[in-house]
C-alpha cells in the first residue's frame, strides 16, 4: 500500500496515512462536503486493515476545529477502527489544546461511545 497524504487547507486537516502503521489527522475540519472529502481516507483505511495492517496501528488525531458533519464522520471512522480492533492493535491519541473545550469534550464522547477502543486523551 502507498502512503496517502492530503495537504492541509483552510477548511481541511493535513492527513497522512502511512501503511507502516501511523495515521495522523491534524488541523481544522469543516469541509464543504465532509463525507466526500473523507471518502478516500475511509477507503484507504478499509483496504489497509483488509490487506496488510501493521502490528500496531497508531492514530494521532489533533483536530482543533470541526463542524458537526465532521463529528459524525469521526464516529464512523471510530466504528471502522472498532471493527478491526479485535484482530489488530489500535492505539488512538486524541490530542487537544488545554483551552479547546470542544475538542476535549469530543474526545470524551468518543471514549464513552467506543468502550472497546483504546483512546487516550492527550493534552498538549
Amino acid at each position: 500500500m502507498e502512503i496517502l497524504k492530503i495537504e492541509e487547507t483552510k477548511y481541511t486537516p493535513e492527513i497522512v496515512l502511512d501503511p507502516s502503521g501511523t495515521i495522523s489527522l491534524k488541523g481544522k475540519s469543516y469541509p464543504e462536503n465532509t463525507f466526500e472529502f473523507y471518502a478516500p481516507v475511509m477507503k484507504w483505511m478499509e483496504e489497509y486493515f483488509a490487506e496488510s495492517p501493521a502490528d500496531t496501528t497508531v492514530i494521532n488525531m489533533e483536530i482543533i476545529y470541526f463542524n458537526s458533519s465532521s463529528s459524525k464522520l469521526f464516529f464512523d471512522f471510530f466504528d471502522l477502527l472498532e471493527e478491526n480492533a479485535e484482530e489488530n492493535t489500535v492505539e488512538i491519541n486524541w490530542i487537544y489544546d488545554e483551552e479547546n473545550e470542544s475538542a476535549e469534550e469530543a474526545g470524551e464522547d468518543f471514549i464513552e461511545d467506543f468502550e472497546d477502543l483504546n483512546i487516550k486523551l492527550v493534552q498538549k
Partner: protein
Amino acid sequence: MDIHENKLVGEIEKLREEFVKTTEKLIKDVKRQDKIMLRSDKRQQQEYDELQKKFGEVEALQKEIEDTQKEVVFTMGAIGESRSKETGNHVKRVAEYSYLFAKYYGLAEEECEMLKQASPMHDIGKVAIPDSVLNKPGRFNEEERAIMDTHAQLGYDMLKHSNRSLLKAAATVAYEHHEKWDGTGYPNKLAGEDIHIYGRITALADVFDALGSDRVYKKAWDDEKIFKLFKEERAKHFDPKLIDIFFDNLDQFLEIRDSLKDTIED
C-alpha cells in the same frame, strides 16, 4: 405441518434478530446524532458569544481610531488657524457650514461628515509661510501676496501623499479652496465643476465666516453687505448652486453662526 411451522418460526426469528440488530444500530445512530447536535449547539452558542465580544472590541477600536483621527485633523486645523488671521471658532463654524452646504448639495451622509472634518484643514499650508510675511501688519505687496497664495499648494503637498480618504479630502480642500467658479482663482485657475465640490463649498464657507467676523484689522461686515456680495459673486467667485442653497437655508447658517460665536477673550 410442524416442520412447516418451524420453518416459518425460524424465518421470523431470523427476521427479529435482524430487526433488533438494525434497530439497535439506528438507536445508536440517533443517540450519536443527538449528542452531536447538543455539542454543536453548545459550541455555536459559545462561538456566537465570542464573536459578539470580538465585534464589540472591534467597534470600540474603530471608534477609538475615528476619534483619534478626528482629533488629529481638528488639531491640524487649529494649527493652520493659529497661522492665519482667523481666530476663535472659525474652523468649527467653517466645518458646520460645510456640512450644511454638502447636505443640501445632495452629497451622501458619509461625504458630508468627511467634508465637515476635512474643511477645517483648508489653511494648513500656512504653517509653511514665513513669519515675516504672515505676520506683516498692513497690506501685502505683490511679492508677499504671491508667497501667501502658495499656502494652497503647500497644504496640498503636505496632505496629498495620504491614502486615507479623510486626508485626501483635506488635501483637495487645501488645494482648491481659493479657486473661483469663473476661473480667476488660484493656484490652478480651475473653473466651474472642475473645482471639486469640497473646494467650492469650503471657499464659500470660509469667506462667509471671515466676512462676518470681527478681526483686529477689520470690523465684521454687516449681513446685508455680505448678502449683496454673495449675490454679485454668484457664478463669479462662487458656485451659483451653493449661493442658492445659502439663501434658501439662510436661517440655518445664521443659527450655526450664533451658536458658535467667538467669545470675548478671542
